[in-house]
């Protein structure tokens, strides 16, 4: 893909997904909500433990990586 192709793809992407209006960093607060109570509530909540199937999936991935080390780059690509 040459530079022209890249520029064409960039323009198409910008037309498909226009940038967010305005400058969110400028202090404009779209949310209009005070999120501090939600942060406090989150801090008070018990840390969630990963469900058992997450551990099972992790164990499976480690096992697969040990058996098929050539699949590691492919796995990393999709992470």
């Amino acid at each position, binding site marked *: *893909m040459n530079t022209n*192709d*890249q520029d*064409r*793809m*960039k*323009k*198409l*992407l*910008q*037309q*498909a*997904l*226009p*940038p*967010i209006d305005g*400058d*969110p*960093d*400028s*202090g*404009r*607060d*779209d*949310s209009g*909500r005070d*999120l*501090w109570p*939600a*942060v406090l509530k*989150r*801090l008070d909540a018990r840390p969630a433990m990963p469900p058992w199937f997450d551990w099972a999936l992790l164990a499976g991935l480690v096992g697969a990586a040990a058996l098929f080390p050539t699949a590691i780059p492919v796995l990393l*690509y*999709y*992470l």
Partner: protein
Amino acid sequence: MSGAGQLDVDDRDGLNHLLAFRQGDVDAFETLFRQHQRAVYGWILRIVRNSSTAEELTVETFWRIYLAHARFEPSRGFEGWARRIATHAALDWMRAARTENELTSELLTDPAAPAIGDPAVSAEIRQKTALAFERLPPKLRIAAVLAVIEEQPQKDVAEALGISVAAVKLRVFRALRLLRKDLERQGITP
């Protein structure tokens, strides 16, 4: 008191807040939250393009920030650190949303909306492009959304993602290449 003297006092207050936050002080954390909430929310909004998700991820980001308070280095500044944590929170959300094949209508262009820019690009092509973009691997999508769509400086994108500027360029290139291949498979020649 002179302006410079006032600035020194403000700087000292700011540093004290950062040091107190590093010790886990919740009041100092609230002060930092009030100072940076909008910037963090705005950064996340640019990535996820959905206001309610951006709110949720802003809360998630500040929760992660507080959990990591002991690892914070005041000399490196709060804003860049917060932005990096926010970016990773958004990336995690994108990965989870991809797994669930979640696609909100707000992410897509309205087919009935008038064309922006080149009128030769039909609404159908814009929608297919948006859908193809959603299918990209999240780490490529997040680089492209920040560097191409939101036109953020590549240095800022690199810092937020914790990678080099060259790696950002490579990810953007790969994102555009995969996007073009996806569109070509659908019979669209960009």
